[in-house]
């Protein structure tokens, strides 16, 4: 039987870094509806990196114009920087969220992407048979999810079937 569990957040460790973006991403390929998930596994460290256009996270991609939009941006910042409800793994893997790298994108006239990165330490990585990208449940109008998986023995690209959240790591 496989149990799901929510990742624990080690509060007060200050691991979640929320830095305002000064980076320019002009050369980054950006297509609406397409979300990329990068999964890297080495030893006990599992790293998940999400790359999603702002329009699929917020529903809009310009600077917020009213309170509702400002709230939406703030809610996403809190959610993505906390790392809660982002992804799930088999309970037996005993993973704990270790750090979050989150830089809020600069919303302006151009394109913007959310690229949070989560690092987990898993006590029993052998049980890591899959990862589920729960964040997709909150994303909007995602048409394609491309998943890149790398580990000591494998490098692979998969596309998630529509409606599916699960990425096999085997």
């Amino acid at each position, binding site marked *: 039987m496989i149990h799901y569990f929510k990742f624990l957040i080690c509060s007060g460790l200050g691991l979640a870094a929320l830095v305002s973006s000064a980076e320019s*991403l002009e*050369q*980054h390929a950006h297509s609406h509806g397409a979300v990329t998930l*990068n999964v*890297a*596994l*080495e030893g006990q*460290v599992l*790293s998940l*990196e999400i790359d999603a256009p702002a329009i699929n996270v917020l529903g809009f991609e310009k600077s917020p114009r009213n309170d509702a939009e400002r709230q939406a941006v703030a809610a996403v910042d809190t959610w993505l920087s906390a790392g809660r409800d982002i992804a799930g793994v088999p309970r037996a893997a005993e993973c704990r969220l270790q750090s979050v790298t989150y830089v809020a994108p600069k919303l302006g006239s151009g394109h913007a992407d959310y690229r949070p*990165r989560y*690092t987990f330490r898993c006590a029993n990585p052998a049980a890591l048979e899959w990862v589920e990208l729960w964040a997709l449940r909150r994303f909007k109008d995602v048409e394609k999810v491309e998943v*890149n998986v*790398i*580990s*000591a023995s*494998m*490098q*692979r*690209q*998969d*596309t998630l079937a529509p409606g599916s959240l699960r990425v096999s790591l085997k």
Partner: protein
Amino acid sequence: MKTLHLALRSLRNRRATALLTICAIAISVALLLGVEKMRSAARDGFANTVSGVDLIVGARSGQLNLLLYSVFRVGDATANVSWESYQKIARHPDVAWTIPISLGDSHRGFRVMGTNGDYFKHYRFAGDREIKFASGKPFEDLYDAVVGAEVAKQLGYSVGSKIVIAHGLGNVSFAKHDDKPFTVVGVLERTGTPIDRTVHVGLQAITAIHVDWQSGMQAPPGSQIDADDARALDLTPTSITAFMVGMESKVMTFTMQRAINEYRQEPLLAIIPGVALSQLWNLVGIADTALMIVAAFVVLAGLLGMLTAILTSLNERRREMAILRSVGARPRHVFTLLIAEAGMLATAGVASGVAVCYGLIFAARPLLEKRFGIFLDPGGLTGYDLAILGAIIGAALLMGALPAWRAYRNTLSDGLTIRV
């Protein structure tokens, strides 16, 4: 058993038709199995060629393009990577090792690759296999070369052989670097990858042989720089074709890939080889499926041919059936006789199809190796192959039920006097 024996004797009586039917089935099965074998063999061949390399970096072009020219020596680079950018990335603390690659010259149809000693140290293929030397050692001197197993075999080279590198690619090149000959100092063990078809020299050697070349031509006599004078020059290359990167931690691979792809000083492209290969298979997958469908229909046509042959023979064989009945065969014996016939035709067809398929693959293998540097290992029959072949025989038995049923009906009504 008796029925099988009878069916065999009956088929032997009609051996021309039977052989043609077996041929038709054999060809269609060979095609189907061939498509399947080539597909899996090509995938394994590609996947086994490079392993343990986290990133491949080249000039910004396409993922597949970079993968194909850097690893498989298929196609050419559109641009180079500057030495400064290479050095900067190679010195990054997250980078464990790098293998520089410089392509563009050839030796009697084999590609020449400029690299350094790290190539023999870090490159892995087919899981975790290292490059090993069958004889000799890695290059040390400027004009040392290490040749792959196939190069050594085809051109008869061994340690100590002198070789001349040609400028550019192609079997017959008029522009030769014959003023700076190389000495073979090492022959590699066979790897089953494009390494076998590569001549490896040092990066500085690539610079040295081009030191007095301008716009694809050697400088006129008088301003040429001879082999020994070139040693005194600074032979640090200004650019390389691509380089492979091994990361300290695989977890940093994506971050490094992004950093390289967004590198501002130079348009660079970093790819993860396995990911690029997945993309290639996605692309080729459509053609694969189309081929499989075509092959499946050819098999169906083959089986229909068998059905036609058996059905048309039925009328001629009414007497045969009647005689069988007269010596005590029951209608169900006649039924199983015809099913057995179909089964035997199909089994013989499938068996010879498998033989033809393996024969063709082994015949085509050297050609594919030579033309594309791809090594096909068809392997044995997998469970999937056996399932396909079993399904073909099953379909044949099912089809055989049609003439069997008709013969059964005939024997019930015909008796010994046949009204034709």
